[in-house]
């Protein structure tokens, strides 16, 4: 690229990411979250002491996206796996990356108890209101009336309940250092989310506390919406149900 010689690179692929191509659908926020996490790891210079715990979900390969040690956890158990790693090697920085089916349905108990014990881990919680990987079933976070393959008429709160607000739930506990909800639907929110992920990691490294960063994300495939429309849906609808911002900051 001879013409770039007078130019400096101002945005490069984070060094802590491997070269592997993401397996996500076009426009999926999982990729963006991966990049943000990579940027944060770079910024804090912790690539060589970080362990990524990948969930079962579309992010099942997450352990391979990073030039960090990584482990693939059973569906819903990433927080327990992260606990095991952190307790065994407290000097490591442990990131549990989980979807909403993983964290808020099958992993509810592990999520709440890891938070309640104040495990010194960082949980990245990707709330895309659907089970992406298995083909678009209802998640605990699916909006009232939202259609999914397992609620073809839309989520009926009378029999399926209302969307579970995880950050709010975790914020009722005494131990967590930092609980926040972020979104990625435009550049401003991407920047804020980046800050939040960094802070959560910093708290783990410096204060040895528990953080949950809930990220309201899209699933263009599951929602059957083009990516840009999905972003607008987040801005206009989803963030009404899942208000953004910090819920707890005891750092």
């Amino acid at each position, binding site marked *: 690229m001879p013409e770039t010689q007078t130019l400096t690179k101002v945005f490069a692929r984070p060094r802590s990411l491997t070269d592997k191509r993401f*397996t*996500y*659908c076009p426009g*999926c926020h999982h990729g963006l979250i991966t990049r943000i996490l990579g940027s944060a790891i770079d910024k804090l210079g912790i690539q060589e002491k970080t362990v990524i715990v990948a969930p079962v979900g*579309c992010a*099942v390969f997450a352990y391979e996206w990073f030039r960090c040690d990584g482990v693939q956890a059973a569906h819903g158990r990433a927080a327990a796996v992260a606990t095991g790693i952190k307790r065994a090697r407290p000097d490591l920085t442990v990131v549990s990356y989980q979807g909403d089916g993983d964290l808020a349905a099958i992993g509810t108990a592990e999520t709440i108890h890891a938070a309640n014990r104040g495990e010194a881990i960082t949980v990245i919680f990707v709330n895309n209101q659907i089970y*992406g*990987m*298995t083909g678009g079933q209802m998640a605990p976070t699916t909006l009232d009336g939202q259609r999914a393959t397992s609620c073809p008429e839309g989520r009926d709160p009378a029999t399926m309940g209302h969307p579970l607000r995880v950050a709010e739930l975790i914020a009722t506990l005494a131990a967590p250092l930092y609980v926040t909800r972020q979104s990625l639907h435009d550049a401003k929110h991407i920047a804020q989310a980046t800050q939040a992920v960094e802070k959560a990691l910093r708290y783990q490294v410096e204060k040895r506390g528990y953080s949950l960063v809930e990220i309201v994300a899209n699933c263009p*495939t599951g929602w059957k919406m083009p990516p840009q429309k999905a972003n607008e849906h987040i801005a206009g609808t989803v963030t009404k149900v899942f208000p953004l911002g910090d819920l707890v900051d005891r750092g």
Partner: protein
Amino acid sequence: MERAVVFAGFGGQGVLLAGKILARAAMDEGLEVTWLPSYGPEMRGGTANCTVVLSDEPIGSPIVESPDVVLAMNGPSLDRFESRVARGGTVIVNSSLISKRPARDDVRTVALPANDLARELGEPRVANMVALGAVVRALGVLPLAAATGAMEAELGAKARGRLFEVNRTALERGYAQTGAGLI
């Protein structure tokens, strides 16, 4: 009589649907049939293929080592399945997307510009139906009408009217474009 077809392409090219319609057509004609998709990774994207076996007796293996007909809707599919076509079988190559031609001389090659033909019909999405028409012709065991009926049943209510018409025309076009029988 037992015949097997592999439909292969990118996800989104509609090869699974084309295979399903063939399976339904066979059932409607009183044949035994199996349709087996590569249900692939628990992930999005990538390639897709399915195998349809038609027979006048109960079908054993739904996996077929040497299909009689292979429909390759894109390059990677041709690369993958070319070598497996039965000696004397037919490879239908979507020549709109694939410039390469099979190297084997013991199979018949049909170069079918499925996307171009579909575009000519004013509906790019019916490339798979064009291809299915070709498959039905190559296979030679089902009347085109069976495929048309099955297509209608498969697409259901939404296929009434114009959409049905264009799909039917696509099937016919593919059928017409292709020489009958295997080699």
